[in-house]
Structure formats: C-alpha cells, structure tokens
C-alpha cells in the first residue's frame, strides 16, 4: 500500500486525510522537506493558492516536489492544488501589486483563477467522469478554470463537454473542484489507481 503525503501548509488537508482513511490508505501531513522523503504520492489540497505557494517557497518545498514529480511520483492537486501544479496563472490587471509566485509547471495547462466568479457563484454540479459509471456530485468553490490545454494532457471530465474540470498528464492529476468535501471517495480511488 502506498503512503500518500498531504501538503498541510494551509487549506482543507484534513478532509483529504479523512477521505484516504475511508479507502484504508495511509497518509502523512507534509509541512517540511524531511517529511517529503518517505512518501509514494502527494496531494496538494484546496485552500488559498497564494498563501500555499508562498509557504512552499519559504520552506523550500517547491524544488523537492518538482524533483519527485520528475521521478514519476503521482501528484494530485484539487482547486488551489490545480493552480499550483499548472504551467501559467493568468492574473487580472488590477492585481498588479500582488506578489506573483510561479506555479510548479508540472502539467501543461494555463489557469485563470476565480474564473467562475466570486463566492456567490460557487456551485454544485453532477459531473460525468471518465472511468466512473455514475455521475459524481462535485463542489466548486471560487474555482479556477483551465484556459489552455497542452497536447499531452488528457481531459477526464468537463462541465457540459465544454469546461474541463479533471485533467491528467502522465503522473499528474488535477481537479478544479473538491472531492475531499463530499462523502464520495471515487475520485480519491481514481488517484490511488495511478500507483
């Protein structure tokens, strides 16, 4: 059985740990370099992407995660995690005073943050997902959208066949919603099947 690290700098990491518990998968909270050494996979949770990216750089975890990804370690990012794993983040002009962190560039997609709108536009939706027989009831919170998809990236699910929300490139999985906020562990199961 693999041990999954859950990046625990900020966000809903505890919910991912509980979800992995329901699949009887061992997990460990990641806050430092040392704890990255003994894991077989990594989840980057939902949270505030600016806050998490800043702490990733401050505690020097970024390059280690990139090297682990290059060795083929499965990594999954949900919402903020998807933003962090992307190639480029598109910003609005009014936000030019905010310090911009470079994402990890581990999946060939560009991201627009909060592209569905503000919190009042956050929504629930029944998604068809490749590999799942029944729809998955998904929760989108101030969710990002994918604005460009590289040619080696697979789309596993879209809203109405137009807005991609689960994507995969080799060992990297991303979702713009929060499977960890539901009681349905089928997306976590899809991730575990990548081992």
């Amino acid at each position, binding site marked *: 059985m693999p041990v999954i690290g859950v990046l625990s700098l900020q966000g809903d990491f505890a919910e991912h740990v509980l979800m992995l518990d329901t699949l009887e998968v061992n997990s460990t909270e990641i806050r430092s370099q040392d704890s990255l050494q003994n894991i077989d996979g990594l989840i980057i949770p939902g*949270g*505030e992407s*600016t806050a998490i990216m800043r702490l990733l750089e401050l505690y020097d975890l970024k390059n280690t995660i990139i090297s682990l990804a290059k060795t083929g370690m499965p990594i999954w990012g949900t919402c903020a995690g998807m933003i962090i794993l992307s190639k480029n983040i598109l910003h609005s002009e009014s936000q030019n005073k905010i310090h911009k962190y470079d994402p990890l560039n581990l999946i060939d997609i560009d991201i627009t943050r909060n592209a569905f709108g503000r919190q009042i536009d956050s929504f629930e939706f029944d998604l068809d997902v490749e590999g799942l027989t029944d729809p998955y009831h998904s929760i989108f919170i101030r969710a990002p959208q994918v604005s460009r998809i590289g040619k080696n990236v697979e789309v596993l699910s879209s809203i109405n066949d137009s807005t991609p929300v689960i994507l995969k490139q080799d060992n990297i999985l991303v979702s713009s919603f929060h499977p960890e906020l539901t009681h349905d562990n089928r997306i976590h199961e899809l991730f575990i099947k990548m081992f």
Partner: protein
Amino acid sequence: MTTDTDQVTGTWQVKTGLAQMLKGGVIMDVVTPEQAVVAENAGAVAVMALERVPSDIRKAGGVARMSDPQMIAEIIESVSIPVMAKARIGHFAEAQILEALGVDYIDESEVLTPADENNHINKHDYKVPFVCGSRDLGEALRRIGEGAAMIRTKGEAGSGNIVEAVRHARKVLGQIKQIHGMESDELMAKARDLKAPFALVKKIHETGSLPVVNFAAGGISTPADAALMMQIGVDGVFVGSGIFKSESPEIMADAIVKATTHYKDPAILAEISKGLGSAMKGLDIRTMPESEQLSKRGW
C-alpha cells in the same frame, strides 16, 4: 462565466466549503486597498474590509456601522483572495448591500453597534455565507441554526488581550467533548440548558465536532497567540488590530501566518518570534467596564 442551469449556487456545502478552504490560515483586518495588498503578500487567506480596526472603533466611540461600500469595492478590486465585510448584528439591510457588492463572506459582528437586540440575521436567506462570533456552544449553535456557515470566538476585539478568545474557545470545545460523551437520552435536557437547536446538539453527539469551521478571533496579537489558539483546537485565526497596530505590520503579518502553519513546532515558533518589534498595546479586560466589552453584545 458559464451560466448552466444545472449549477446550483448558494448551497450549505458551498457556503461551509469556502470556510474549509480558509483552514490553517490567517484572516486579516484591513482598512485600505494598500493594506489589503500587504496582507495578501504576507500570506493572508482572506481580508476583512472595514473602515476602522476594532481598537480604533473603541477609541472613536459612537455608532459603528457597515463600512463605505466604495471602500469595500476598492478592496475587492485590489486582491485575489476572498474579501469579508462586517454587518451589524440583526441589520439584514446592511447584509443585503454587502451581498450585492460581491463580498465573499459576511461577518455579523459584535464589533459594530448591534441594530437588533433580539434577532440576528436570518442567514439562510442569502447566497453569501456568514461567519458569527460565539462565547459558548449554545451561542454557536444558535447562529448555525440561523444559517451561519462559519463560527469564530468573540474574544475581546481591539483589546490585544488573548484571554477572552481562550475562554471562548475552551468553552466551546469543552462543551462539544461533553456532549459527544453523553448518553442519547440526556441530549434534550442539554439542548434546553444550552438554548440550542436539538438537531444540532444531536449532530455534535454523533460526530464530536462542530458542523462548521471554527476560527479564533478577538485579541490575537503575536505569533505565539496564534499558535496557542491553534493548539487549543481552532481551525484558523482572525487578526484584527494586531497587525496594522503593531510596530512593523509586514513582519508581524508574515510571522503570524507562519505560526498558524507551524503551530505545533516550538523551534520554528521561536525563530519567527524574534525581532518582530512591539505588538499592539493591550488592554486589561478585568478593569474594562462591561459597557465597553464588545463580546457582551449579541446572545
């Protein structure tokens, strides 16, 4: 923006879910777009937009109301993280205005002068989620019953003194533990004593936790204060006057963010607590007249 009709907005899961995204983070009070940018750059997970921080509201006296919508709109424009704003207790028209402005969370707050001494806002009526203060579990469950999707301790806002936040957090968490350990047939009497909705008391009995995220607020002024509250068992912290009333706001903000992540690691806490300059000047709650204690507002 997509406009598909199958996308259901304003649900309980979506409201409580945003609070779950804020966990392990620091929400900072800001009074200008410039401060909001400082907060975001220091790693805040959200900002609370208001005209005056609580310690200045105390000094100014008079009636404290919702902030100028123009100023809130400018703060919304200036950052990419969620923006919260405060409405007076029971002032549902202020809440409607804040929702129309597009704020991401409304704090129905005792820091402002209450508009209704009997009724809090019926928060189920809104698509925007609400956070409310509480001093004990009964108060927390009454607010959740009215639709609050996030709870915080009241603490004593603008005091720079952590004692009330500690009292409120310990009270709520202690009462949760107690209910979790009770027999099922004791729950109705407990709901009566707490003046809390029975269904929520029953839920706490089953799960052993609050059904929404619970932050600390009111008096947090140092990284050690943040670590203390996180170790007591809250999910994150609000810092009001503690940042922009300290000697070096950028440095203090950065240190409190780090302390909220590494709250269990004393070596890191020692490192980040060095050379922060002076924290805000605090007040002794014991010598504060009851009429000046903001936590006594609301029920």
